[in-house]
């Protein structure tokens, strides 16, 4: 199977309809969410996110986790980066850890963004979570975000024992832009002989700067994170190089020629979102390269549906699928 990477001649068909519960949830949040993010609205969007920043107490999940913030060395010649280290309380021995990379289209968010949901998932399988603060575009274009994330992973693997984490059981993960960066970090770890990751959890990952799939065209002006937003994010990260011939796979993992030798991947995506086709294609290419991957395409899901409408039946199922994958991955 191949997914066309160039725009088709005819206008694409309408996208699949949203799941009814998701559509109703989106209706409620219509005033909060615009499908299209433009470069000049980035500052406004950033401050909107800041309002919902979880506190240390939120991150403790009622005592299930201890939270510690550590400043660790960044990439060579770059500033230090901050890691939020959340370790499960009352767990004997070294525990596996999820190295989490937050989302935000490469331009927004911090290492607390969406973290309570990640912790709830990790709590179900007894994992620690290390969330990295990386520099954001457009102030810090590629390779700053990816290199920050990789530097944090190196430090985490080397110092895992200090906070009760088993360095041989690290899973890298993230949602949206964080999913793209997690895929990039997995490529970097393979190519540079870095930590041997045991898995990569890519939730609706942002993988392809070319932004020209059928799903991207179908979703223009609809739902969450449309083609225009995606162009804003990738252009912030890559500038003029976006969509051109010389984009590094560490910026856009869909550009990687070789997807062999990677840790098992979990990929999920909605059928009604920009990233559908690039995410399905990435899973397909992982299989073609002999790598292991589990792919879920949730019908009628828009981008980030389980975060925006967590109560919907399909969101509950999507979250459960991630937990089930982690449980199988970590099974002794």
């Amino acid at each position, binding site marked *: 199977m191949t997914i066309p990477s160039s725009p088709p001649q005819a206008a694409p068909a309408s996208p699949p309809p949203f799941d009814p519960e998701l559509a109703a949830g989106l209706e409620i949040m219509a005033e909060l969410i615009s499908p299209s993010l433009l470069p000049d609205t980035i500052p406004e*969007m950033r401050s909107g996110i800041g309002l919902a920043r979880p506190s240390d107490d939120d991150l403790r999940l009622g005592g299930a986790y201890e939270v510690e913030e550590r400043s660790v060395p960044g990439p060579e010649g770059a500033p230090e980066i901050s890691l939020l280290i959340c370790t499960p309380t009352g767990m004997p021995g070294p525990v596996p850890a999820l190295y989490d990379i937050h989302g935000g289209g490469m331009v927004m968010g911090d290492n607390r963004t969406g973290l309570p949901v990640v912790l709830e998932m990790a709590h179900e399988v007894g994992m620690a979570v290390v969330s990295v603060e990386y520099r954001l575009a457009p102030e810090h274009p590629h390779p700053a975000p990816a290199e920050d994330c990789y530097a944090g992973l190196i430090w985490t693997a080397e110092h895992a024992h200090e906070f009760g984490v088993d360095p041989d059981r690290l899973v890298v993960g993230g949602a949206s832009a964080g999913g793209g960066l997690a895929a990039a970090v997995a490529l970097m770890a393979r190519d540079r002989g870095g930590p041997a990751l045991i898995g990569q959890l890519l939730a*609706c990952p942002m993988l392809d700067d070319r932004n020209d799939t059928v799903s991207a065209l179908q979703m223009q002006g609809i739902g969450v994170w449309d083609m225009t937003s995606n162009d804003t994010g990738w252009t912030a990260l890559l500038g003029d190089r976006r969509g051109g011939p010389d984009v590094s796979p560490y910026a856009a993992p869909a550009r990687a020629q070789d997807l062999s030798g990677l840790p098992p991947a979990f990929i999920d995506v909605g059928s009604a979102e920009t990233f559908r086709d690039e995410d399905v294609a990435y899973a397909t290419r992982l299989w073609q390269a002999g790598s292991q991957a589990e792919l879920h395409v949730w019908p009628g899901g828009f981008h*980030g549906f389980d975060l925006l409408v967590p109560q919907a039946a399909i969101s509950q199922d999507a979250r459960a699928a991630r937990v089930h994958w982690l449980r199988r991955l970590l099974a002794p």
Partner: protein
Amino acid sequence: MKELAGRLTALDPDAGAAVRVIAYFDRLVEGRAGLEALVRGAAVLAGCPARLDDERHRVRIRVEPDGLRADHDGPADPAWSSAPLVPDGPAAFWLERPGPGGVVEAMVLERATAAIRTVLDRTRGAAPPAQAGDQALTELVVDGAAPEASRLHAGRRLGLRAERARAVALADGAAGVRPFVQAVPGPGLPPGRAGVGPAVPLADLPASWAAARVALRLTAEGTEQDPGPRVVHADELGGLAVLAGAIGPGTPPVPDVRALDRAAASAPWTLATLDAVAFSPSLRAAATALHVHHSTLQDRLVHAEQVLGWSVHEPQGRLRLQLALVMRRAHRGISGRTA
């Protein structure tokens, strides 16, 4: 972007929020969402559990404010905000929080109820819903030849909410069978003979029905001419079920059963006496059950043993008598329908 995780519960309690509540339920109805999605929407928007309990359509759904379905059978608190589904009807939809609430809560109650009514009318129609004793549905739910989906649908229409149920075979062919949700059906059984099948998942009710019919054949009227238990549980039959399976109305009676028939014809008290002796812990207990003096019982047994041709005083003879009595009942056919 996903990070704008504005929770639905973050609605401001103002007129704008009420407008969005209307839009929420309108979209659910437009998208042909199911009842659970509607109840969930109410729970999430109101921030408290919501429950739908419509006796008329035999629908019961309860959802927590985090969106998780959590049905339970506890009674509704009269203090909760509630609404009927039909004008002047009983309350059928509740927000599990003392009312009256604010503008948003009132709007959630009103719009959720309206949407539920729409979906119920669309999917379950205005036709009279199934009654508990609906014979056609009951036959379907135990019919092993019917597709499983049809049987499960019939079970829901009958209001079977529990995961397990028992088929019950009744002596009057018209009633046929009744599924039960109680662990041990007792008060719910109608008078008369009944064979009770084992509790099984709804999909396995045909098997429970088959076992119930075997059990029914081992029941008796409990009279002098037809002594024995009125209600027999298939669960308790053990090997007797195998025995009953080998014998039917058309099977020629074995010599011991013919001997019992001869004994029954010789005196009106014979069968009841032998049944009491066979299934009582002692002869003294049998005499008490029969309301006769111990010596009278001894006299009767001398007569009965002569007709039978074997002693019922010895354990082996008692077992032979028990089996003969059970086999004699097993020849009984089942009147009426043979679903």
